[in-house]
């Protein structure tokens, strides 16, 4: 590559990085990136307090896990109290208006310090048993996978990239400052490359940092031993995958939105169209599925967030269950898609002209 081009790309990046990171109109992008981490932090605080509460209840109402698990429906209330002692929390109420008279219902709550056991006693006999586990790594991994794929990638990173990349050219047109670049002896493709790389650097840093913060916030409430065990297993691979997928999302969505920023005045219209296209991915024929960023990203996620059987039809519209290609092919496919979009954008960039008056 021509050394002047490299120097020009570096110069464009130098100017654009500052703008991409510190644009006043881009503050909401940081909120999108760190928003989920805040939610996980609140969750972690809640789980920690809940655990402390259970430990305190266990001390005042000690009970053995095995004995708790041995209780079966049909056990009488007297036997329950004889085996487990007094519950740490008890509710009593009457329900129904039957001919035989209303039912006497008692809710008895016990804990072994880790899980909560709720025994529903109706007319003196245990009728329902509910064990609520404390959060564990497997459970939280599944939650993270779902939030990551359905919220973070499809909404936060997606709209963050709309904000960063659409503004690379459009923002300058609005600020009436694009001529600064267009008057330099620089190929428009080089300008596009410099701006794209600057946007990509900013987006990748902001959103991978967001992913890292989410993982840190989510694992904060686990015992060090649990975290170490997870890391010993698939932990590092999962974390690297999520960070990589986030960066690749910026690569893919960034190329699309830098192109739409060159083609359209209003970024919302193309963004909506792309979002609908991405959402429709599961319903597209195999060949068309590959013309989508989410298709490649989902194949690279370590945990597949499959739809639950009772997921409402409307929500299912957002869920891609595309057949996953191997990781190397997914990465290659995403880069090929990105290159194709950037090539199309560079054709548009060659005809780029300032038209401040009509903005």
């Amino acid at each position, binding site marked *: 590559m021509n*050394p*002047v081009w490299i*120097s*020009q790309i570096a*110069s*464009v990046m*130098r*100017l654009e990085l*500052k*703008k991409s990171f510190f644009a006043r109109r881009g503050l909401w992008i940081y909120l999108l990136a760190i928003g989920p981490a805040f939610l996980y932090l609140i969750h972690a605080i809640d789980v920690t307090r809940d655990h402390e509460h259970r430990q305190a209840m266990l001390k005042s109402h000690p009970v053995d896990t095995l004995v708790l698990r041995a209780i079966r429906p049909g056990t009488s209330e007297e036997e329950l109290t004889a085996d487990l002692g007094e519950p740490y929390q008890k509710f009593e109420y009457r329900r129904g208006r039957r001919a035989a008279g209303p039912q006497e219902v008692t809710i008895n709550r016990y804990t072994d310090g880790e899980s909560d056991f709720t025994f529903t006693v109706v007319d003196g006999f245990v009728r329902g048993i509910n064990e609520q586990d404390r959060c564990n790594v497997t459970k939280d991994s599944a939650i993270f996978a779902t939030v990551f794929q359905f919220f973070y990638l499809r909404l936060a990173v997606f709209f963050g990239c709309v904000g960063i990349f659409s503004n690379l050219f459009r923002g300058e047109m609005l*600020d*009436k*400052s694009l*001529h*600064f*670049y*267009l*008057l*330099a*002896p*620089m*190929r*428009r493709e080089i300008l596009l490359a410099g701006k794209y790389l600057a946007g990509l650097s900013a987006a990748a840093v902001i959103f991978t940092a967001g992913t890292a913060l989410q993982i840190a916030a989510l694992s904060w409430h686990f015992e060090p031993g649990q975290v170490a065990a997870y890391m010993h297993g698939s932990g590092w691979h999962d974390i690297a995958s999520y960070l990589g997928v986030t960066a690749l999302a910026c690569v893919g969505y960034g190329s699309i939105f830098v192109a739409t920023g060159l083609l359209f005045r209003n970024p919302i219209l193309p963004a909506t169209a792309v979002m609908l296209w991405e959402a429709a991915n599961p319903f597209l024929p195999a060949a068309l599925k590959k013309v989508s960023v989410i298709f490649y990203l989902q194949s690279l996620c370590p945990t597949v967030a499959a739809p639950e059987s009772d997921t409402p039809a409307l929500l299912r519209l957002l869920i891609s269950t595309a057949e996953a290609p191997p990781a190397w092919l997914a990465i290659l496919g995403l880069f090929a898609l990105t290159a194709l979009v950037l090539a199309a954008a560079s054709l548009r960039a*060659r*005809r780029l*002209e*300032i*038209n*401040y*008056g*009509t903005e």
Partner: protein
Amino acid sequence: MTSANGGRVTFDNVSRFYGEVLGVNRVTLSIPPGITSLVGPNGSGKTTLMNLMSGLVHPTRGQIRVLDISPNDPERLCRVLGYSTQFDSFPRGLTGHQLVSSFLRLFGYDDDACNRLAGAAIERLRMTEATDRKVAAYSKGMRQRIKLAMAIAHDPQVLVLDEPLNGLDPLVRAETIALFRELAAQGRHVIVSSHVLHEVDQISDQVILLSNGYVVAEGKIQGVRGEIQEHPMQVLIRSSRCSALASKLFEFDHVVEARLVEAGSAVLIKTRDADRFYRALNHLALNGIDIEGVAPADDTVNSVYEYLIGEEGSR
């Protein structure tokens, strides 16, 4: 130089429309080196013409060459062309020096060259004291000068300057005009747009008059004036015998008006044939009529513009 037009800026039947709105239409020009002024009221197409030659907008039809380079080739064009636009927006947060050196860095120069060239350009515009201040805090005049510094920093052969004297105080204005003259004297193209007609008169080697997107006249101002037949030429003659001179001149059929002005110390003549008038004036001088001074009274851009375009343009 690669062709006969290699040293010129040429427009060949160039039109530019913004949707249904006309920018410029069927412009054919060949601009030689020197100071050329684009003159016209708002919306006459001056800025469009400048944007076209600098590649910021593309023609709807026709062809433009700047020293034989197409504006579609910014990699070559912007090395020979510097453009001080009318837009005051710059990348944010930069000082004057950073702005110019950042711009030069886009040319591929190394840091040392950028700093040296930026420093020289800023010095040339007498902006050294403000070089480390943020551009956002600059006054209108300082912004104008820093834009000029950006335009000249890479030593271009063609300078395109959109209203470059706007906002400058009289001293700086005079210095800037001197700079334009110096650059033009070095054989460069200095293409200036202006509303201020007496300034155009002062600085231009040639003018291009624009109205509603059309070029209505181009060339040296006296030449353009001579082409306008329907308005008699006005000549101011100073003499100690103004009354006698006026009556003698009025005998010629090409003189349509002879009026005493300036408290009788001068005669303002209107003639339909300048050549015959000057021959007649020589004859009178040789026959003893004392002539202290002769000066054309309406071969200014202002007059020409008024004749060609009307009141609106010369305001």
